């Protein structure tokens, strides 16, 4: 039980941090900084993958939402 609670807490923290990172990465200043640090090729390659991943993630979400009453 304790283990399960720990796992849940970890997942919640991880999810929360990922969400915050996502929100932060949408800020123009953060994007400018990342662009300068990573270089345009790496930054744009990652951006491309993140965008496609986001699109694909929306499919199961829409699928489940469509099943809701």
């Amino acid at each position: 039980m304790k283990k399960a609670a720990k796992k849940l807490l970890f997942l919640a923290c991880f999810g929360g941090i990922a969400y915050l990172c996502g929100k932060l990465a949408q800020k123009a200043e953060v994007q400018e900084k990342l662009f300068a640090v990573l270089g345009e090729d790496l930054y744009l390659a990652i951006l491309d993958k993140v965008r496609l991943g986001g699109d694909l993630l929306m499919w199961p979400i829409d699928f489940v939402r469509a099943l809701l009453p």
Partner: protein
Amino acid sequence: MNAIYEPLFTPFKIGEVEIPNRIVQCSMGGTTLFGWLEPSHFDLEGADFLLKRAKDGVGLVLPGMQVIRDTMGRKWLDSNRQMYRVLKPYMEEYHKTGGKLFIQLAGGFGRSMAVTPWMAALARNDLLNKLASPIVDVQYSCASASETPNRWADNLNSRPFTIEEIQEMVWHFGATAKKLREAGIDGVEIHAVHEGYNLDQFAIANMNFRTDQYGGSLENRLRFATEIVQEIKKQAGDDFPVSLRYSVRSCTKGWRKGAMPYEEFEEFGRDLAESEKAVKILQDAGYDFLNCDNGTYDAWYWAHPPQYMPDNCNLADVEHIRQFIDIPVACAGRMTPEKAAEEIAAGRLDAIAIARQNLVDENWVTKIKTGRENEIRPCIRCHNGCFNFSKANGTENMQSLGDSLHLARCALNPPTMQHNRYKIVPTKKPKKVAIIGGGVGGMECALVLKKRGHNPVIFEKEDQLGGLFLTASAMTFKENDKKLISWYRDEIKRYNIEVRFNSEVNDLGTIKRSFDEIIVCTGSVPRSMPNIKGFEKTKSFRQLLREKSVEGDKIVFLGGGQSSCEAAYDLVLAGKHPVIVEYGNDLVAAQATCLANTSFLRDAMEYHKVPVYLHSTITEIGDGYCVIKTPDETFKVECDAVVNGIGFVPAPVGEKSAHVHRVGDCVAIGNLRTVVWRAWDVCMRI
């Protein structure tokens, strides 16, 4: 406003619903309110785009086609109650603009379903299709009136719909329309006895071999479409307006064969005589409006005209059938506002239907209304961002996954349908940015940077802006490409951006000290193949098209890509005799170039009897001749010149560093979309 446009801004009625003006935004796949091919949901991106169109002043907006049964998930469109609840407040907001919105409900694709390789694999295997069917049933999505060959995949036939399936679909059209009306939608448009979609496949005798009540006579072939409108009127009310997307003529010569705009041919689909009777039947069945064009998927360039088709290409046919009915009629297909206004004023047409111009310039209606029509960014009908279903000999639909998920984006205007990804955010640290190269990439960079508050300076080696696009737009049929260059030049002036002409930059070191950032947009140079004897004698596209220094009648193109085919077509129109030698198995076999564009070029080469050698190459180029090697023989051909059409290689200047960036063909060879989108991707983050 210029007085010639005034007829466009008069109201008209569809049934009992008054449309505030004559401008109809045609439905475009992807601009949907309930999602594209994914499970139906209220789509925020689509909703944002459509609301902006109404705010711009479009009288009637038709969101992208909505299949009555989800392709993914297979739920009926009337089953998602939450979606309709969200729709209601949206429509209240929408109606504040004064505009009207009809939802386009589709009866499926049938044989036109643009199957990708994995879809074709499912459709060809009954067991796999059955296993996948709770999520996606490709055989159902491809089902048609009869067993007919798929437009995209070889060796794949549609299965015929059963009568029960047809009647089930008809009932759901009615149920969906009822829910839409309750949510505040102004009407529906049925998709479509048009473009060779499913209902059109029922309507066309050569695609419908049924012997039941849905086959045989014209009345029977139109029964599916007429039952739908009757069911909608029954469930949603007699006064709920129903439009029909309708192709007057199919302009089709056979399976996968279209007819040129100037060609005399035997019609395989619906001809004008049959159309005269069909529109009367459809009107009598209850349709209140016909939104018309021409074509099928086999003659796709009529419904989605690329730059090779003439302006207002469907107008004469649409005006012809309007004489046989009393309901209003709109015409789509490279319509110009000037011509539409003239026809509406003369009483020959009721509305202008415009699609992709709405993607490229979000304020084009406002610009007309305020007398700024010369500020409208023109659509060049490239279909690279909005509609890049592509196919070559032996392939299925080659569209990438990312593009399949997002239709209706725009090559020239990245914020369209992705407004959260591409937006102008003012900078807090204005910088001085040198842009090396004044082509489309350089000009786009300069505009984005200037709008963000930076101070860009363009260094252009020639005495004019345009770069490589000056050559690409030199053909006679590329009027809108030329207008695009003018638009860019005007914008550069309007934003007061400094341009240093006749300034070739070969060493970035000289300007590094004076600028915070440098963007290299130096484009590409023609690829070379020195292993071909006499290759140095080849001519470039620049020499052929822009400088017009290539003389003679018989020009051989080494390479059969889009540039070669477009140049060859230009020569054909000038009465010359081009020859194309292509290493691959088809002309313009490129991913991301729309089949509407490529099939025109392929059909044009065939119609004009241009000699095309596939799986072939040139082994020697001499004075007045070249040697062509095909799989079967090697032979000498007399010619006036050989044009190097084997492609381009990036030609960047200087080394990359933290403050030196690259945009456009100097990164990788692409198209206007890759150039413009990368310009935004880079300049949004400087």
